[in-house]
């Protein structure tokens, strides 16, 4: 113990005056704190990003993993994917799914956040319990909803029929024209708690005096919401929407467990298409192409995210 502690004690005392080897050794020690995480992130985030680009120019077949041969094939994967109807449909479904989900999650999440900002009994308890749908595994939620939405035995159709809101059971998951809507509904349900909590946090930061001033000026609730709440909440809204966007666009779990991409590919998204091309057809090259498109779209929105974050830091506390 005494031998190991002697050296750093000395170096601390001497460090301001003595640069050179000792200082560089201290710098090395500092880097050792960060090195494992940095190396890990390079391996698990950096490497896949680069590797995906390379893979998208390689010809993978089911035999590749035995022979190790994946010859370069130029733009073949790219032309194949862009000419594939699965891709164009997935792109479209992803756009509809993402926009629909975000809109629903955000509007309902904001409404709940505003509602829970009033002070009343059980408010804190209710807010906490509402987090449950967001905390349980998405596959579990999807499986539960698969039962709820079942055309013949699902409770939602039972309810709608009993209330005479519909005369025939709705084919929530079995009709190609309804399935994507159902997936959006389920994802809205999953995302409401997250939106609510973040927006609620943002609402608490708005100074009460602003509301008092508004009510002195005779502003009604709607006017107050539009002129004070929304503008003050803007940075938080941006963060919530961008984070929501990035987690929704890459969706995979929810759709695989709810519909498996079907019926008739009506719920295939870029995420499920990547999975299908790579892990089911074992054409990792074409899967990588779709993956790269996904990254490209995310990258554009990452710029928004970083901007939003910077303005968040800028307002500084």
């Amino acid at each position: 113990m005494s031998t190991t502690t002697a050296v750093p004690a000395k170096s601390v005392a001497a460090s301001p005056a003595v640069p050179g080897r000792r200082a560089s050794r201290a710098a090395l020690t500092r880097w050792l704190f960060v090195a494992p995480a940095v190396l890990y992130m390079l391996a698990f985030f950096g490497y896949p990003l680069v590797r995906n680009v390379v893979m998208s120019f390689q010809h993978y077949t089911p035999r590749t993993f035995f022979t190790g041969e994946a010859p370069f094939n130029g733009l073949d994967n790219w032309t194949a994917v862009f000419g594939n109807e699965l891709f164009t449909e997935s792109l479209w479904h992803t756009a509809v799914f993402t926009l629909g989900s975000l809109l629903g999650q955000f509007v309902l999440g904001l409404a709940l956040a505003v509602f829970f900002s009033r002070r009343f009994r059980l408010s804190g308890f209710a807010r906490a319990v509402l987090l449950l749908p967001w905390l349980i595994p998405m596959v579990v939620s999807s499986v539960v909803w698969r039962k709820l939405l079942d055309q013949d035995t699902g409770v939602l159709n039972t309810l709608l029929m009993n209330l005479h809101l519909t005369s025939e059971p709705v084919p929530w998951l079995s009709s190609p024209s309804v399935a994507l809507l159902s997936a959006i509904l389920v994802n809205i349900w999953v995302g409401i708690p997250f939106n609510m909590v973040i927006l609620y946090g943002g609402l608490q930061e708005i100074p009460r005096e602003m509301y008092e001033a508004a009510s002195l000026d005779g502003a009604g609730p709607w006017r107050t919401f539009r002129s004070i709440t929304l503008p003050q909440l803007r940075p938080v809204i941006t963060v919530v929407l961008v984070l929501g966007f990035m987690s929704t666009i890459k969706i995979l779990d929810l759709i695989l467990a709810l519909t498996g991409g079907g019926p008739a590919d009506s719920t295939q998204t870029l995420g499920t298409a990547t999975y299908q091309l790579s892990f089911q057809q074992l054409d990792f090259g074409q899967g990588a192409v779709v993956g790269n498109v996904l990254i490209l779209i995310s990258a554009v929105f990452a710029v928004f995210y970083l901007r939003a974050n910077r303005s968040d830091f800028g307002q500084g506390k």
Partner: protein
Amino acid sequence: MPARTLRRGSNTVIALVVLAILLFPLYWMLNIALQPGESLASTSWFPTSPGWSNFERALDSQGGSLVTSLVVALGAVVVCLAMAAPAAYGLAQLGLRGGRSIVFGTLITQMVPGIVIANALYSAYVDLHLVNSLPGLILADASLGLPFSIVLLRAFMVSIPKEIVEAAMVDGANRFTAFVRIVLPISRNSLITAGLFTFLFAWSDFMFALTLNTTDDVKPITLSMYEYIGAHVSDWGAVMATAVVSAVPAAILLILAQKYVAAGITGGSVK
């Protein structure tokens, strides 16, 4: 002020109605799981004569997967925190050159779609013989919590006064012992929050489980459930019982660690 109390009371009623609607799917999951004869007739609205046979069937076929999930999630927490805590300290306190770029990179990683990682990781895992292995899945799942944990821990560690650590070093501790004896205990709450969320992320993981396993050797509960509904879609009782069991960690966390959960959601995502 009777009018005001009345309004507050009606708010509580509205809140309970919202709660009932939004949590109905989870109630229904529990309801089906507790009704043993479910397949015979349509499900009744309340489990008037509850039974455990669904849970027995579920545990029989899925018990092993629950253990796998537990091992993988705990392993991912250990791996993640072992890397995140020192890194967060380094980035918050040690004034590293290029530290800002690392923080920036950490933020960026959160936008890389998991399926893209899996796509490239699979072939690397084949070469490294990590496919179908517990360590392989634990390593991959640690990636789900690492950026989040670094951001969260760093945000806290920035506020630790430098003098505390310097004082310990003057007293003869080296930087690493000072980190373990002083920084880690002070950061206890943030470490718990980061650990809890990493546990939840790994416990919920489906994608790595699905893509990095080709045999039945390593099968976490999410994957097991996915395969089970593919094969036994008529046995909803057992499926729902499995769903209940795999939702338990989230429910426990919400009850026991509510303040950490709230801290994690706001701290990790906004900052």
